[in-house]
């Protein structure tokens, strides 16, 4: 149930997909590399280095602005946000303050009753990421930090919403949709570690606002918000005051804790970055061509492929899944929708595989086998599982084709005569069930059919089998 008294606003930091960092030419592709190997005087904050803005990051931000219907002001500027922290090499973060690259947009999400609802986007701005800190304890139990500056200066956009969200679930749906939109725009890679971080502002109507910082997963956002709502409600019920504060979310424990540090009172002394000329890019917006976005693609899937809204929604939620579906839908879009949305996604999730790990050719082949009735659905699942198990960590070419698996495992659908013998055996072996059937207990048929299925290892089509069993039982009656 949507609760009108819960007020939530989000600040979402997303890592932009660029080859180089925001203000220097260091490669952003450092995930598998040693610490401090993707650094230069600029992102290390060495004295004398100057920032130079990456055009691609600006273009990505504009793309997002256009997709979320934001306005791009005539002039936008960078500022320094001053604070000391060991992972911040220059002692300030270059970000945008009062002149962000884009302002005032809208994204629509469904509320908890399934009605579409407009969420206002306050602003989008560009900023650099700090380095990465590791906390260590030495043998004498004194703590210290280790810094890796590979992440320093990675381009981020921060997307800020108005306090328009009304439930943790709604917030999660908003984030999911935002993520898929960003992926469709090809500005964001959600699979990259730490690619999204959220600060959530939450309050109960009439009470102070609390900011939960550093939530690094979609699930975490819902958890943190649920925890906070309960905590704040309990305080209100006890007649206690809700302090306006910053709290940290502890992902592992699912709770938020107060961070009553000096940080709360920090004055960031925002200051126009003197090394970076202003941007005047509002005119560039009209030249940006947006790709088909999730909502449009969902509509198209429903009309073009004639699939259900639910299927279309599941299939278009993730760009890669949507592309995957379209490349296997050819033989039979309806069967393909069922097999991708209802079966394949669950199977890969169970195996912690990604959709990229699955060869489209093999799935297309499987869909043809199902469509042609060459194997039963049950066998199809067995073929799929066999294939995925063998596929994990393999090249796509090395994956066994479903048709070969069918032959190897003898899963070709049992036709007419193949199972009439089995039916006869089962009827002969289960006189009690046959007697029950005669006594009018319809459930007995299901038991007998189940026995046949077991013996044929699912190769028989259940519908055909039911008809044949009925006929066989009638025959023995005579």
């Amino acid at each position, binding site marked *: 149930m949507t609760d009108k008294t819960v007020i939530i606003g989000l600040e979402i930091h997303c890592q932009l997909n660029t080859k*180089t960092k925001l203000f220097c030419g260091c490669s952003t592709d450092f995930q598998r590399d*040693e610490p401090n190997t993707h650094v230069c005087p600029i992102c290390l904050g060495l004295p004398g280095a100057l920032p130079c803005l990456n055009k691609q990051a600006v273009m990505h931000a504009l793309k997002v602005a256009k997709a979320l219907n934001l306005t791009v002001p005539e002039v936008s500027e960078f500022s320094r946000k001053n604070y000391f922290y060991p992972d911040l090499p220059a002692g300030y973060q270059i970000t945008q303050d009062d002149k962000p690259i884009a302002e005032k947009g809208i994204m629509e999400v469904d509320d908890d009753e399934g009605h579409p609802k407009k969420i206002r986007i306050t602003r989008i701005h560009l900023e650099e990421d700090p380095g990465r800190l590791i906390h260590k304890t030495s043998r004498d139990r004194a*703590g210290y930090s*280790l810094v890796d*500056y590979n992440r320093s200066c990675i381009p981020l956009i921060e997307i800020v919403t108005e306090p328009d969200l009304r439930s943790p679930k709604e917030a999660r749906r908003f984030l999911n949709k935002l993520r898929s939109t960003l992926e469709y725009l090809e500005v964001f890679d959600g699979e990259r570690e730490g690619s999204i971080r959220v600060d959530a502002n939450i309050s109960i109507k009439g009470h102070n606002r609390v900011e939960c910082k550093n939530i690094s997963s979609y699930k975490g956002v819902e958890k943190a918000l649920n925890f906070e709502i309960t905590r704040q409600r309990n305080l209100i019920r006890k007649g206690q005051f809700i302090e306006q504060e910053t709290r940290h979310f502890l992902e592992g424990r699912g709770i938020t804790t107060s961070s009553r540090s000096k940080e709360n009172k920090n004055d960031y002394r925002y200051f126009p970055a003197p090394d970076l000329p202003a941007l005047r890019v509002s005119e560039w917006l009209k030249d940006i061509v947006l790709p088909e976005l999730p909502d449009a693609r969902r509509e198209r899937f429903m009309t073009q492929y004639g699939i259900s809204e639910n299927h279309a929604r599941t299939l278009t939620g993730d760009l890669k899944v949507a592309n995957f579906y379209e490349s296997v839908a050819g033989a039979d879009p309806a069967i393909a929708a069922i097999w991708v949305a209802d079966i394949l996604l669950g199977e890969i999730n169970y195996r912690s595989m990604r959709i990229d790990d699955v060869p489209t050719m093999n799935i297309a082949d499987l869909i043809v086998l199902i469509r042609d009735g060459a194997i039963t659905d049950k066998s199809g699942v067995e073929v799929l599982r066999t294939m995925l198990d063998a596929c994990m960590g393999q090249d796509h070419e090395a994956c066994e084709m479903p048709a070969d698996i069918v032959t190897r495992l003898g899963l070709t659908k049992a036709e007419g005569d193949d199972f009439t013998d089995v039916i006869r055996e089962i009827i002969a072996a289960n006189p009690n069930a046959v007697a029950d059937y005669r006594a009018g207990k319809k459930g007995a048929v299901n038991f007998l059919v189940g026995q046949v299925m077991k013996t044929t290892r699912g190769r028989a089509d259940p519908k055909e089998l039911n008809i044949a069993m009925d006929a066989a039982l009638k025959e023995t009656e005579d």
Partner: protein
Amino acid sequence: MLLENDVEGIAKLADIQIQKEELTEITVQFNQILEYIDILDSVSEGEVSNSELINVLREDVVIPSLTQEEACANANETEDGHIRAPRVM
């Protein structure tokens, strides 16, 4: 007019430890300087023209980075390619 504890607060924000015995002198100098620069109060509001330089952008092309050795060469303590820093917890 700033008081000694205002100056202490500023020093805290600037992350500069000033010695107690210097505080009085610094506060006096601070106030002298502020008194001088308060002449800016007589500047009437006005627009500041924008620089002619706009949209100075770099193409998204990778430039070789420093080696880990070069990056850490001026650091005092390193550990497994990381640079050591004071603790934050």
